[in-house]
């Protein structure tokens, strides 16, 4: 799959809404994409999409779970006030990026709207120019009359960003929800490569729900799937925006990151390093002193404990409607995952040690 094809697949995924705990549209789209690549597809009680690609090894076969989250950050309607909406965030959002964003309100039907700050002329003059826009200063303008708005929209309705994705610079893609649709694209590339390669283990994939709120999908899917190993694939912070501490970010387009810290199984980390070298995938070690703030945190402590790994794709402007990734990094993540899955043999678990 070249950059243009990958960009087309990703743009298709980005255009489906999937706010935390309401992942229906992206789940159905992803089910269509994964159907030809998998032997079984099911949906969990909390809305995660599970898939199995059977290995060629003897039964009972061990299994590896690769998880990436489907949900993305967005907003929820709090109040309908004479045709305008007050909103609250779903997931971690900086209100300062919101003025001027086009949105889709998922009311009785899809209603387009525009996130706007109160005009400066209407703000309390006490509120100085240095004070940033807060959620309470923001409205969604539906451009509808008060009665039409009240008929179509209720408190609790979800609001998704309506920013369309576009390609940029040298093989970059900008768009909403790339955290973590980029990870889902990497899973998809991994599955495509595994159609051409033998693998003895069962490869389980999960597009998890609710990650941006409470990791609900990963916490529960891991019990249903009960894998022997788990890998979370997510986005990490890329260099670029000014004012970022250099040691906490990774260059865009120069490779993926392998997480390292208490959440990560050290033996599994070493196996991933070796797989990356074999697959000629450049990588950086991402030191994570505590929680990783990804599905990995839940996978590690699921059931009786699962050796867990985290593979991340550098991404700029995380949790904004214009996140930016390098397509080549997504391809690298897919290649690494396929290489690792294909290398799993019957004795792998016995050889895997913490030391």
């Amino acid at each position, binding site marked *: 799959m070249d950059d243009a094809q990958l960009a087309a697949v990703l743009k298709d995924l980005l255009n489906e809404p999937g706010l935390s705990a309401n992942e229906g549209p992206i789940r159905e789209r992803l089910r269509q994409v994964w159907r030809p690549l998998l032997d079984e597809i099911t949906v969990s009680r909390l809305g995660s999409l599970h898939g199995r690609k059977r290995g060629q090894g003897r039964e009972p076969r061990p299994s590896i779970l690769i998880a990436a989250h489907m949900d993305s950050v967005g907003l929820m309607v709090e109040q309908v*006030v*004479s045709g*305008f909406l007050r909103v609250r965030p779903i997931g*971690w*959002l*900086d*209100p*300062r*990026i919101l*003025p*001027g*964003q*086009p949105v889709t309100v998922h009311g009785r039907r899809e209603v*387009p709207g*525009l996130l*706007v*700050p*109160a*005009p*400066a*002329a*209407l703000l309390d003059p006490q509120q100085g*120019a*240095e*004070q*940033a*826009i*807060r959620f*309470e*200063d923001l*409205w969604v*303008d539906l*451009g509808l009359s008060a009665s039409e708005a009240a008929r179509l929209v209720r408190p609790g309705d979800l609001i998704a960003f309506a*920013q369309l994705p*576009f*390609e*940029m*610079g*040298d093989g*970059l893609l*900008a768009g909403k929800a790339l955290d973590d649709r980029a990870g889902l694209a990497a899973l998809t590339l991994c599955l495509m490569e595994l159609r051409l390669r033998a693998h003895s283990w069962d490869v389980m994939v999960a597009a998890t729900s609710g990650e941006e709120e409470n990791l609900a999908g990963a916490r529960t899917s891991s019990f249903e799937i009960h894998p022997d190993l788990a890998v979370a694939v997510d986005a990490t*912070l890329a*260099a*670029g*925006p*000014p*004012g*970022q*501490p250099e040691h*906490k970010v990774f260059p865009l*387009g120069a490779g993926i990151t392998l997480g390292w810290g208490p959440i990560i199984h050290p033996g599994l980390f070493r196996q991933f390093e070796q797989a990356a070298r074999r697959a000629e995938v450049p990588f950086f070690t991402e030191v994570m002193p505590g929680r990783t*703030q990804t599905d990995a945190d839940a996978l590690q402590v699921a059931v009786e404990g699962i050796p867990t790994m985290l593979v991340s794709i550098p991404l*700029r*402007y*995380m*949790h*904004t*409607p*214009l996140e*930016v990734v390098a397509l080549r990094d997504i391809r690298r993540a897919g290649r690494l995952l396929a290489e690792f899955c294909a290398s799993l043999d019957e004795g792998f678990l016995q050889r895997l040690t913490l030391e």
Partner: protein
Amino acid sequence: MPRKPPQRTRATKSPAARRKAAAPWRPPDLIDLARRLSEASGVSGDEAAVRRIVLESLQGRTDQVSVDALGNILVRCRPSGRRALRVMVAAHLDEVGLIIVAISSDGMLRFETVGGVDERYLLGKAVWVGRDHLPGVIGVKPIHLSGPAEVARAVPVDSLRIDIGAASKEAASQWVQPGDRVVFATRFEARGQLLLGKALDDRLGVASLISLVLDPPANIELLAAFTTQEEVGLRGAQVAAYALNPQAALVLDTTPANDLPLGDGSENAAYNTKLGAGPAVYLADRGTLSDRRLVSLVVEAARAEGLPFQFRQPGGGTTDAAAIHLTREGIPSVSLSVPARYLHSPRSLARREDWLNTLRLSRAALARLAPDKLR
């Protein structure tokens, strides 16, 4: 005083127009015109793309079109009767935006604002850089690395960068030069009554003025000025008014509505205009006290034609009228605006009927304009 000769004069009918003469001429679709004008880049001082659309729309249809030293398009439409008033109608071509000032070693672009961009809207927006609409993003440090104290503070424009996906200064320099203008990357939308797009200020006025020029009122000598550099100090209008030397002037623009509900639930008495209430007639703004005779003429025309109108609340803001009415010995002037929300942001919102009624009202007012109205 003799009129300054126009720098470039176009023939009444181009050869292309004569060839096409067989097919019946149809005026351009206004919504399509608004779309093309809204999506064109025309930051003050670099209005070429917008100028091109206007000149194409007028080609072969008007008496005399010229482009002056500041890039204003000046059109003189001959009246059919004698003793017709020379009436200037102005709409500005330019929009607020950004300008690239430097390229950093990491390939990021530094910029400054041109005109009164509402800076609260800049973070996390898609932009088009330069005349070829190179896509870029005004990036922001993710919330993951910003503490609560930082999120509570507005981000100064100085600390923002445009990301075009270039890995180095050398790579970026192949695509961008300091001085290139930048606009918000916004596609125009017409959805039922709603019009959404960038630069509705003042491309709606420009589209209206094109429509007037293509079918000019016969009772006046219509002197149309598509002005440049309004957003940086009404600079185009100043010289256009001098060159056209009109006896009266009408300015077509847009004005903020500020008609949102208030956060504390109290009545919004500080609105400027209201969307859906019709064309906004100016009585007084920061730069102009409107000519009372012209205000009366507009009101009379609205009542006679059954068109809605509203008085814009007197207060801040200016239009080209501020420069025009002080030109030469003084020119009686009035402004008529389409009420719109979120001007000077990535996406403004106006209502189709407000716009079309503004055009209808300007036409009706001009049709009633005779020398005795100014006595």
